[in-house]
């Protein structure tokens, strides 16, 4: 079993930097029978809209889709927490036979009456179109009756990839944009897009911008509110994070409302600083914004550097693998890990496009493996081949790393620690350090063969792996057998 077979049809989605010519295939539907780490269209829509906390999220379909997405993300709200509930029309056999429209209308009506949301999203799952439900019509009717926006989300699982789900979500969001008042919005104002407030990260980011003197009109969709979304067209600039999840919306707002957008990432010191400077630059006629942004960066970086440096001492030279949803996050992580002295030897994403992978290739050292839409067998093969010390990924990657005795850091939407912003960089370093320096790896059979290197002392935190005496008893009578 030592050499895991790679499917021929997958070869073009795997690149060995420095070995192969660069011809990366991506944006492909996952291969049948390969165990993709991707989810579906529905997942894409659900990810984007999930953090809107005062909206009703009703999943129209059999129970599974709702059950598996109940309160599984760390997107925090400062107020209502309706998004943490799981609502489903829970279609049964008779509904499949006779159609689910009546049930949908009834469910929507009663839920709106009970929870009084500011809007409702209705997610179509796989079979909804097939059984012929006119979801849009039901939404319209109930929306009119209840006096709130009821928005269909066309997220049938099989109709494309996760990215199509992003798009469906953006379509729904766009219907809310432009419906609110914008009088009190000043010229130095932005919307934050693609920041989901995992573990309160959006709050950190927002505070930086506000300290710069920039008004944050809306965070789409972190700690999201329907009213904020409705007036988001009043902002001067859209700042888009995440590899494209919200880019669709930014494009539509640019087209319709003439709002320009820039991209940003809040992970790592460099990218976080850049995210502030880039926004400040957009408001060049307010030079004080740039001055304040520099002050913020300086003071925040000063605050975290002493500990970062202590942690770095233990992490320097360790090898890391990255497999995340969006390629844009991978860029930031490569930089952040290098900042900690670590070498990235594998990097991949579920949803990168051609230009993303070209960027990755340019960023990486020779010998790095670059992967699109990988599966457990590929990941396990390459983390062993590359003698990885630390894997950065999501829940589905975690057991792969652990089985092979490799440290892990969850950088997915289930994380409970804010990893964005300057404070987040410190949290990230700590998290990486905690895993990489744990003494448990000394017991991992797959790591034994790597020699004692992985077993180095943890000076700043963690324990030494190897016990100095290892149980020989000082002062005991001579042992005999």
């Amino acid at each position: 079993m030592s050499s895991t077979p790679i499917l021929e049809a997958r070869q073009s989605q795997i690149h060995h930097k420095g070995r192969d010519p660069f011809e990366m295939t991506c944006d492909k539907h996952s291969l049948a029978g390969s165990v993709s780490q991707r989810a579906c269209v529905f997942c894409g829509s659900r990810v984007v809209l999930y953090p809107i906390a005062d909206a009703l999220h009703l999943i129209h379909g059999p129970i599974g889709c709702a059950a598996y997405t109940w309160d599984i993300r760390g997107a925090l709200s400062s107020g209502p927490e309706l998004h943490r509930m799981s609502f489903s029309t829970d279609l049964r056999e008779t509904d499949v036979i006779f159609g689910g429209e009546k049930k949908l209308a009834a469910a929507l009506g009663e839920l709106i009456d009970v929870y009084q949301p500011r809007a409702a999203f209705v997610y179509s799952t796989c079979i909804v179109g097939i059984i012929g439900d006119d979801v849009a019509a039901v939404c319209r009717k109930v929306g009119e009756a209840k006096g709130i926006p009821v928005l269909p989300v066309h997220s049938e699982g099989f109709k494309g990839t996760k990215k199509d789900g992003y798009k469906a979500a953006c379509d729904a969001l766009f219907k809310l944009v432009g419906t609110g008042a914008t009088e009190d919005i000043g010229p130095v104002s932005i919307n934050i897009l693609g920041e989901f407030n995992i573990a309160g990260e959006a709050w950190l980011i927002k505070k930086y911008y506000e300290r710069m003197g920039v008004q944050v009109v809306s965070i789409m969709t972190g700690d999201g509110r329907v009213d904020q979304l409705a007036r988001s067209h009043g902002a001067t600039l859209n700042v888009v994070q995440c590899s494209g999840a919200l880019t669709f919306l930014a494009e539509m707002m640019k087209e319709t409302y003439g709002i320009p957008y820039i991209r940003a990432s809040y992970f790592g010191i460099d990218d976080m600083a850049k995210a502030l400077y880039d926004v400040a630059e957009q408001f060049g006629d307010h030079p004080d914004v740039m001055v304040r942004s520099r002050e913020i960066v300086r003071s925040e970086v000063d605050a975290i550097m002493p500990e970062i440096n202590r942690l770095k001492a233990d992490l320097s030279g360790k090898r890391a693998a990255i497999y995340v949803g969006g390629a844009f996050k991978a860029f930031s992580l490569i930089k952040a890990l290098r900042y900690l002295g670590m070498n990235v030897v594998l990097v991949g994403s579920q949803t990168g496009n051609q230009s993303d992978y070209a960027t990755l290739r340019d960023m990486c050292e020779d010998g790095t493996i670059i992967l699109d839409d990988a599966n457990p067998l590929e990941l396990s093969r390459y983390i062993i081949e590359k003698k990885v010390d630390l894997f950065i990924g999501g829940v589905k990657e975690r057991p792969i790393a652990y089985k092979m005795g490799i440290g892990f850091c969850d950088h997915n939407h289930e994380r409970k620690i804010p990893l964005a912003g300057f404070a987040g960089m410190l949290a990230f370093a700590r998290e990486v350090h905690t895993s990489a320096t744990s003494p448990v790896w000394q017991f991992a059979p797959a790591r034994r063969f790597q020699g004692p290197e992985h077993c180095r002392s943890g000076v700043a935190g963690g324990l030494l792996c190897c016990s100095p005496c290892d149980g020989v008893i000082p002062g005991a009578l001579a042992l005999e057998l």
Partner: protein
Amino acid sequence: MKSVHQKENFTATQNACNLCAPLGAAFAFKGIANAMPLLHGSQGCSTYIRRYMISHFKEPLDIACSNFGEETAIFGGGANLKLAIDNIRKQYHPELIGVATTCLSETIGDDVPMFIKAYRDACRDDALPALVHVSTPSYQGTHMQGFHGAVRALISTLAESTGACGSPSINLFPGMMSPADLRCLKTIMTDFDLDCTLVPDYSDTLNGPLWTEYQQIPEGGTPVSALRRMGDATISIECGLVLAGEKETAGTWLKEHFDVPLHRIGLPIGIRQSDRFFELLSTISGRPVPKIYTGQRGRLLDAMVDGHKHLNGVRAALFGEEDLVAGLAAFCAEVGIIPVLCATGGGNGRFAQAVRCVVPEACHDRMQIMEDVDFVTIEKTLEKIGVDLLIGHSKGYTMSRRLKRPLIRVGFPVHDRVDGSRLLHLGYRGAQQLFDRIANTVIEKKQEKSTVGYTYM
């Protein structure tokens, strides 16, 4: 006793207390040696189910998917299924592929048995893995139907009778219990010197050691060869009071086709249900119950007496899979805990009867039994009737937090503790652990609330 159906009150399901059938089927297939589950439908189904099960088992959990695209929904999933099987074979070299349908492939009307037959016919490869199909549209039944359905499909597809007659051998269908439970059952069988085929057996595949080399399919599981021999067994035992009312199960199939006698009992949870299990094995094996178990039983009873005052009269809400809840209700009644609410997301209509059958009548008018119910309804009910503690899986935590009542985690999923795989529910040791955990929790809460903070009991 009031038996309430939630659906009478509300159309939408709010925070479901059950999962969908394909999950149960994948769960069962994971317990077969060198097997690969394949969900016939959208990519999301397998990914969500993998993620959900990984959070519980903390193990690699490869489940393949035929990965429908838009064209597939139009032209049917035949080509995708073929491609998926091909690719799985190339990468995983399984001995068995368990194909479970989803709502999508069922709704478009895919004829999976025909697809499989065509694949078999077209394939001249001797190394063709066993192909087992189970129909699991997620709009029908819960994950438990998926689980039991997959078990039956395994048997109906593979079991044969050679007519060979050896030492007594047992087919044991334990239901969807923890790896620790399965290990416990296997040890019991060994201690009775009984040859046993446990179906499914994911005690190693979903709860294994660290690896030296990556394993495409984790070691362990019921061997396919053992599945094939099940028609020769002396007896089949199916566990679950609710399952016992099911007309078409693996056990009934073996009975009908190979005349293997079927014995149906409750899950061996608590004293009496465990007693029945051990008595049964004693009868089958012709041996007395091994000393180790009479010892466990003796110490358990002693502990129950020592701690009886902590639990007598405590009001508990039980929720989760029908058979697990029924078993726990039996245990609760034995130590004096009043199961004021027994709730399940399942809805096959036999749940209330099963619970009633193991809880003394005097208690019935203080109990509510709810089928096909969701967590919002459970929580509202508990706000009304009052409760001291909750016994169920992790999805009850939010409710436990709001109600400010401790949650004793049992069953599946356990997403917010480390020991989901190691929780033992069955036999005397399982009852002992349940007893200790519940009694200690009651004591801890009392101690914390007390202004005195007594250091002794």
